[in-house]
């Protein structure tokens, strides 16, 4: 068990990056929930037309606003640039805005990163029997995308498109995403390999709520992701 001082030190030196686009209905709860563990949260508002930025700010997050919608990969890249300039920060967590991740899982990822001296830790909904909750069709698409990622990057991950990850600030500086859309997740894996970063996977739970299901990637997006990767 990690000491209280160790825990404080870890969460104080971690910045959570949340790319968000029209998440006004849930973002305040997501930020509040996350801030019960991590004091530093930055939401990159990717050109939302609703009150996402106001809601996130009122819940205590720092908000960076994109003037126009760029894509989740572009928002993540902005978040990395922002955190990369913070001298007191050692770790970065990427966290989805729709409330499907558990802040306790995020903490487990950072602890794993810290105690094993890794560069990147990926969350996986396919480890430790947690895949039971994944809708069947979604599972097929995720397996397909993971297979494509494996073929394109030579990195064997069970859940390449999970938005929950933990990485060191140095790794975030090296992972310069140019894929602005959803294909950024595969590019992320590819850049981990290219930069020789040490990585691992940790089991995590995804909360499939009605909201997250409606906001989640449409299944046909799997095809868009593959086309984006082939035509980069």
């Amino acid at each position, binding site marked *: 068990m990690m000491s209280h001082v160790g825990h404080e030190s870890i969460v104080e030196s971690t910045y959570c990056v949340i790319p968000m686009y029209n998440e006004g209905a849930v973002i305040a709860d997501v930020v509040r929930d996350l801030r019960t563990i991590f004091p530093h949260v930055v939401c*990159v508002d990717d*050109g939302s037309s609703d009150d996402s930025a106001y809601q996130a700010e009122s819940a205590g997050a*720092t908000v*960076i*606003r*994109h*003037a*126009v919608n*760029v*894509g989740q990969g*572009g928002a993540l*890249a*902005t978040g990395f*640039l*922002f955190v990369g300039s913070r001298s007191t920060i050692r770790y970065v967590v990427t966290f989805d805005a729709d409330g499907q991740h558990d802040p306790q899982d995020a903490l487990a990822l950072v602890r794993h990163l810290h105690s094993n001296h890794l560069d990147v830790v990926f969350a996986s909904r396919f480890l430790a029997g947690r895949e039971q909750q994944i809708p069947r069709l979604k599972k097929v698409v995720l397996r397909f995308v993971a297979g494509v990622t494996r073929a394109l990057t030579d990195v064997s991950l069970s859940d390449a498109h999970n938005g929950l990850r933990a990485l060191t600030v140095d790794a975030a500086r090296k992972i310069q995403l*140019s894929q*602005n859309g959803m294909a950024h997740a595969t590019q992320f894996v590819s850049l981990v390999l290219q930069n020789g970063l040490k990585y691992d996977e940790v089991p995590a739970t995804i909360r499939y709520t009605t909201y997250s299901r409606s906001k989640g990637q449409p299944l046909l997006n799997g095809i868009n992701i593959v086309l984006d990767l082939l*035509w980069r």
Partner: protein
Amino acid sequence: MLLIRIILVLLFVPAFVGITRSVGSRSKAFRSILLFVFIGLVALSILSPQLWEDAAQILGVNSGVDLLLYGTVLALMTHIAYSLGKFRLMEKRIATLVQELALLKSSQGS
């Protein structure tokens, strides 16, 4: 007959890939020359349709109309590929601008 079809189909791949990846001034000049040559050939075909028939016979294509159709499709594919390549480049530039602006505004606000 079969050979020319294979050659024409194989032309699509380098045209599509090459043009989407090259949007510089050299490729722009090359595309302009190709466009003018193609317009010239089409104008010539109006004045002398037999020229396409003769060319088709030499290349082993059914008729001059077929040859013109292949050329048109190739020109269209090239244009689409170039436009998509240009669009992707513009997207990347806009993303960079948006990110720089967002970070600048954020640093001014803090």
